[in-house]
């Protein structure tokens, strides 16, 4: 489990035009730059937003990756709910769910 590096990759992708270009041109190379497990690489590649949420990726980072990958707001929220059903409770971090009943 290398949640720190999953989040670091997404942090850089969210803010750094060079990382964004690498995402566009050589995504596998970008993944190889970080110490990631195969499960993490697969979740980033798919993308499996629900699994990334369950892994514990901070929501303030994940919501921008979801947007980058074309998830509009309601689909992003639903992807997290689906992730909880498929993969179980959030494994790490602060962004747990309580009742799961938000605005959408």
């Amino acid at each position, binding site marked *: 489990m290398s949640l*720190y590096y999953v*989040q*670091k990759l997404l*942090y850089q992708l*969210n*803010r750094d035009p060079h990382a964004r270009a690498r995402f566009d041109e050589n995504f596998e190379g970008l993944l190889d730059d970080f110490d990631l497990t195969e499960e993490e690489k697969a979740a980033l590649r798919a993308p499996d937003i629900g699994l990334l*949420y369950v892994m514990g990726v*901070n*929501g*303030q*980072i*994940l*919501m*921008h990756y979801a*947007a*980058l990958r074309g998830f509009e*707001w309601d689909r992003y*929220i639903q992807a*997290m*709910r689906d992730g*909880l059903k498929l993969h179980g409770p959030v494994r790490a971090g*602060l*962004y*747990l*769910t*309580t*009742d*799961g*009943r*938000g*605005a*959408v």
Partner: protein
Amino acid sequence: MPLVYAGICSHAPGITGRAERADPALRDPFCQHLRDMGDEIRAERPDALLVVAAEHFANFFMDNMPAYCMGMADYYDGPIEDPQWLGIEPQRVPGAASLAKRLIGRMMARIDLAYAQEWKFDHGIMVPLHFLTPAYDLPVIPANINCQGPPLTPPARAYEFGRALREACDAVEERIALVGTGGISHWPATPDSGKINESWDREFLSRWAANDRAALTAYSDEETWRDGGQGGFEIRTLIAVAGAAEGATGEIRYYAPIPIFAVGCTVGRMRI
């Protein structure tokens, strides 16, 4: 000059990014209160607007996370988010580098403060500026309190940060307006997004308006996380403004939970 203005407001990205989905009966008066806040700030003829914010991994990460950081750049670009997602077009906001450097130097006597000459604004500053200074022409000095990646600075230190900020602002010639921006209770970017603990919010705002230092600094992180969610840690920004206004009380101009904005939308001012 003594600090010329001290207030607080919300900054949730939905305020601009999902504006069309909110109940107009709540959204419109809230946005008007934000614009009125901008008018009140301009009426004080400030040379700079100091924004105490809680950024969300736009500039700072867990490889080198400062508890407190202030910007001393010539300009700031934002938003870092996709403009369409946030509903705010890219802007270049003027900084106040010389003033910021003097403030930071003075504050270092009391606060172990990081500084930054590069800083990209995220929604935490861009959403307030969108309403407060829609022309983006007032020089801004950003200050950040880490409210995202624990361990976090304790609320008592956030109050002390505000006191140190006030002393520094009072010691320079320039007229400075101060705005703290953060959520009260919220569970952003989770399946709970839109959940708001209104009674917890109102209790916090009552402590803030009374500027009750002991009550404001009594929150433990465990209590805040349980009752106010992950977003509740941002009360530090509001507590810092109370510290800057120590000895004064305030008033809450607007408060209403707006679930699609994922926060209890707030505008308040200290009577400094």
